């Protein structure tokens, strides 16, 4: 596996905005070999536990290691599927309910590779990236988020 791509910083402080997503989409207009984009957005849910409602998640990560892992996941995905682009952004710090904490963006000439690559990426990210989420409730108590 040849690694020519640089390790990028996946992390952004705070929520990922719809403006940032729009910018990212618009940046692909000159790439006229693309026929299909698939996007995953993770949004912070106001989960209720015993009447206590989540108001935000505070994300922390082993940033260097996570960026290296994101890089490897990206490289593996490029090798497995016929893609034009992959972009991944994840929040650090506080993200309120209703805001977006994960943005995964895959582009391909055709829809099937884009779809399969997006599924692969999201599952890999959820299982392999050393990222941690502290769910903060409205009464300021907290619990630690666990992926399933």
């Amino acid at each position, binding site marked *: 596996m040849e690694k020519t791509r640089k390790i990028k910083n996946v992390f952004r402080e705070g929520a990922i905005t719809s403006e940032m997503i729009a910018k990212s989409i618009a940046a692909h207009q000159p790439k006229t070999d693309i026929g299909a984009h698939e996007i995953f957005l*993770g949004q912070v849910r106001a989960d209720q536990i015993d009447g206590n409602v989540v108001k935000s998640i505070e*994300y*922390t*990560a*082993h940033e*260097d*290691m*996570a960026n*290296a892992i994101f890089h490897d996941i990206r490289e593996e995905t490029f090798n497995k599927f016929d893609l034009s682009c992959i972009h991944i952004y*994840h929040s650090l710090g506080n993200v309120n309910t209703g805001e977006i*904490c*994960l943005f995964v963006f895959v582009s391909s000439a055709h829809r099937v590779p884009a779809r399969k690559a997006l599924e692969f990426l*999201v599952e890999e*990210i*959820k*299982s*392999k*990236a*050393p*990222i*941690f*989420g*502290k769910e903060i409730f409205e009464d300021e108590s907290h619990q*630690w*988020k*666990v*992926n399933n």
Partner: protein
Amino acid sequence: MKLYLKYFGLIAELMKASEIDLEVSSGISVGELKSNLINGNQELERISFSVAVNQQMVTDDSVVCEENDEIALFPPFAGG
């Protein structure tokens, strides 16, 4: 020898620290280190945690630590 420990999420909360230098006897394995840490803080026992040595996940507890290794202790991942 000295190890450079990093704690994350719930583990940082339980250990009341996120980074710490630890003096250990040379030749210590990851498994022995984990036992030592659990002996020092029983609350660690009740959570499942994983370990990375120098940013590589380690699944084999018999791996031996070396001077100045970075040992990261991770609670379950929760990205996304």
